[in-house]
């Protein structure tokens, strides 16, 4: 029905090689993981599409779930199904398993990877189609405030009102998870809660997420998600809470273009200062109720 836009394919065998190709094409190459988001873009063509896709699934060691020294390490290309079905995650990091299970439907979970889930493009309905040339695409305006904004952000909007679509980011942020990121210039760590910035992520064009680390298993945790349909749909609002040796962190999904994470008090205060748009005031009360429930 819709053809994938023209591009060239590259099978990377090492992370270094992948970074090199990404670097060579300077932003016009993209990492191909499960492809569930990327192929959608290549078909809808809502923005100029990449010239090269660098498949990283064949790189040895990028996939897998291990627990070392009390920390959980998830390889970047680990699928969401692997997360849902992993017994360690089910027992000790349940909010993450819940978020994956309440994320995309099973066939997408079978393909979609943890890093791809974190890096997927926003689902704003103006953004996802070529008909609207909005701010996030380089256009002059965000259509949401003056248009239809039921699923949009209620806080931290700056110039774009799209929300972070990733369900996994929410419990990961609450559990203080970090990402190991490798580029041509070396390796660095990025906290999940700092991954998102105004119009995207802090990743540079040549950088690849190689793994996600949850530093310690929470002693108490919860994840909640509200959506229109019972079985599929991105979060209208989601919330996770995790109590660790560092205290309790609450993270909210579906409410902002960046991760909103902090202490329960800080989050409640942030909700009180929310700036909902014309059609999404409901999210304020949902967020409040959810924070109360995940921290109860």
């Amino acid at each position, binding site marked *: 029905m819709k053809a994938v836009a023209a591009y060239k394919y590259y099978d990377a065998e090492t992370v270094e090689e992948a970074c090199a190709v990404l670097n060579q094409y300077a932003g016009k190459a993209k990492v191909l993981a499960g492809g569930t988001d990327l192929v959608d873009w290549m078909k809808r063509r809502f923005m100029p599409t990449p010239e090269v896709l660098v498949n990283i699934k064949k790189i040895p060691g990028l996939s897998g779930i291990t627990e070392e020294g009390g920390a959980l390490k998830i390889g970047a290309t680990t699928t969401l199904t692997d997360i849902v079905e992993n017994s360690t995650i089910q027992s000790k990091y349940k909010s993450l398993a819940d978020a994956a299970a309440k994320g995309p439907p099973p066939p997408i979970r079978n393909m979609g990877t943890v890093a791809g889930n974190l890096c997927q493009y926003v689902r704003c309905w103006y953004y996802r189609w070529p008909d609207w040339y909005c701010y996030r695409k380089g256009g002059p305006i965000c*259509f949401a405030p003056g248009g239809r904004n039921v699923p949009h952000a209620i806080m931290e909007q700056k110039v774009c009102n799209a929300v972070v679509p990733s369900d996994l980011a929410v419990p990961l942020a609450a559990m203080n998870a970090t990402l190991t990121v490798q580029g041509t210039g070396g390796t660095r760590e990025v906290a999940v809660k700092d991954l998102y910035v105004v119009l995207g992520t802090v990743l540079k064009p040549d950088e690849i997420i190689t793994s996600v680390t949850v530093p310690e298993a929470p002693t108490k945790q919860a994840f909640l998600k509200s959506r229109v349909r019972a079985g599929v749909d991105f979060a209208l609002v989601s919330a996770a809470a995790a109590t660790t040796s560092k205290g309790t962190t609450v993270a909210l999904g579906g409410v902002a273009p960046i991760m909103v994470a902090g202490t329960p008090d800080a989050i409640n205060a942030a909700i009180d200062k929310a700036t909902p748009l014309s059609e999404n005031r409901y999210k304020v009360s949902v967020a409040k109720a959810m924070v109360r429930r995940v921290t109860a």
Partner: protein
Amino acid sequence: MSEEKKEVKGVSRRTFISGTVAGLVVGAAAAYGATQLAVPKPPPAPAKEPIKGKYISLTVNGKPTTLWVDARWTLANTLRNQLGLRGTTKGCDYGECGCCNVIVDGRAVPSCMVLAIDADGKTVETIEGLAKGGKLSPLQEAMVKHRAFQCGFCAPGFIMTAKALLDKKPRPTEDEIREALSGNICRCTGYHRIVESILIATGQKPPLERISSGAIP
């Protein structure tokens, strides 16, 4: 509301919206968002060149095949057009309806979202592989008997998704069945008889109780 937003609101969208994708190229640099930062070092030359297509090997319904695929082809289109397996239908091409679900390496996936070139070396099961020697599988048989489908367009996807579940778990609960099928859309049936047929095929439920005061079986 922040200052920026107010500013943005004031701009007339009419001036800027473009009817063509070509129009978007103007903003291409910004299109990659704030992550589009300067690249630090001169690129080390990669070992190979990116390619537009290649020969891939697939095992489809037990039969090994080698074929050339264009990088732009999805697995769904390749199955339908190159391998002549037209039982795999497509309802969206965006991974949102489940019609095109096939089993790849034991897991149900939407074949419209799999790039064929990325499926090199995989084992694929499609609806054509289910009936052996002209005999329907028990799952297919129950679905005919209990009228799981109406127009049937969604059927291949539902059946392959259900098969992947049953391969792993021969007697799934109703909740597990519903969860497994939650990515499949059917506009005709209300899903009721699809779930029921799976429960019946796995010997977990008799056909629903039929109250009848007359001659209806």
